[in-house]
């Protein structure tokens, strides 16, 4: 299976993500430069964490307007898998691949800690190896992790069953305790926690690894 990891200016988790899919999970991985439009025939595009364009103006705003995002849009339209982690999730919202927006944490501070999450859905392409209701711990590290959507939007997210991950102990004010959502079609997933930082035993936690393995399993079939 071939992963494409986008490098926006200011991304800083691309190497971590590359390390997990390539060195730990032994998959093919390539970097995709933000100004290119060729997705190099990858099976899954990952928008990594970081501070694209410094998160100046709004988190993810400037990266969402990068040339490569047009190719990613076409790829997603064709049903291609797109995973946005942290800043990647913010970019997916800014680019309107996913509804809502991520705003400043309620306490106005950067929050770096492990959080407990509950899996709301395991019938998605990204979470099939977990169990419904399973609780996992993953690190978060962000300033704008507070998910916001208006009432109508929230109702529709719920109706369409788009909420995949929730915080059990909301750290940042996210509406509906939302930590990760999927698009209606089910091929674009964004989450604030960092599964790539929790994919190796030596780091004290590998509960995030099943996200990548779910994707890989899918492609094997």
């Amino acid at each position, binding site marked *: 299976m071939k992963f494409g990891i986008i490098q926006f200016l200011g991304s800083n988790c691309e190497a971590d993500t590359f390390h997990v899919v390539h060195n730990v999970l032994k998959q093919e991985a390539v970097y995709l430069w933000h100004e290119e439009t060729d997705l190099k025939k990858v099976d899954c595009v990952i928008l990594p964490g970081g501070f694209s364009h410094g998160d100046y*103006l*709004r988190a993810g*705003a*400037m990266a969402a*307007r990068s040339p490569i995002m047009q190719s990613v849009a076409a790829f997603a339209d064709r049903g291609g898998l797109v995973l946005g982690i942290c800043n990647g999730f913010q970019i997916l919202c*800014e680019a309107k691949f996913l509804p*809502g*927006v991520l*705003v*400043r*944490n*309620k*306490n*106005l501070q950067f929050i770096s800690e492990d959080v407990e999450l509950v899996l709301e859905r395991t019938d998605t392409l990204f979470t099939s190896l977990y169990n419904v209701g399973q609780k996992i711990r993953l690190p978060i590290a962000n300033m704008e992790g*507070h998910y*916001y959507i*208006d009432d109508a939007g929230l109702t529709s997210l719920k109706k369409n069953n788009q909420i995949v991950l929730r915080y059990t102990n909301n750290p940042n*004010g996210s509406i509906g305790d939302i930590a990760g959502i999927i698009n209606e079609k089910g091929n674009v997933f964004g989450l604030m926690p960092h599964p790539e930082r929790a994919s190796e035993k030596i780091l004290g936690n590998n509960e995030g690894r099943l996200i990548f393995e779910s994707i890989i399993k899918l492609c094997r079939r």
Partner: protein
Amino acid sequence: MKAKIYITLKNGVHDPQGEAVLGTLKHLGFEGVQGVRVGKYIELNLNGVSKEQTQTQVRSMCEKLLANTVIESYSFEIVEQ
């Protein structure tokens, strides 16, 4: 030419920064403050030809990048220099 752009959160959108500022202002003894909303103020220098053309341009910049219209509204003025 100069554009002065004001970006504010839409009504109803929660503004944690504004709330924190309100809290601190009260704490500092400014009792009369009732509500605070924190937005952005952006100044652009442009070498536009006409005011109208510049207006169209600036609107397009706001729509495409400067504001996230899911939660923000914007307004602007163009000043000839």
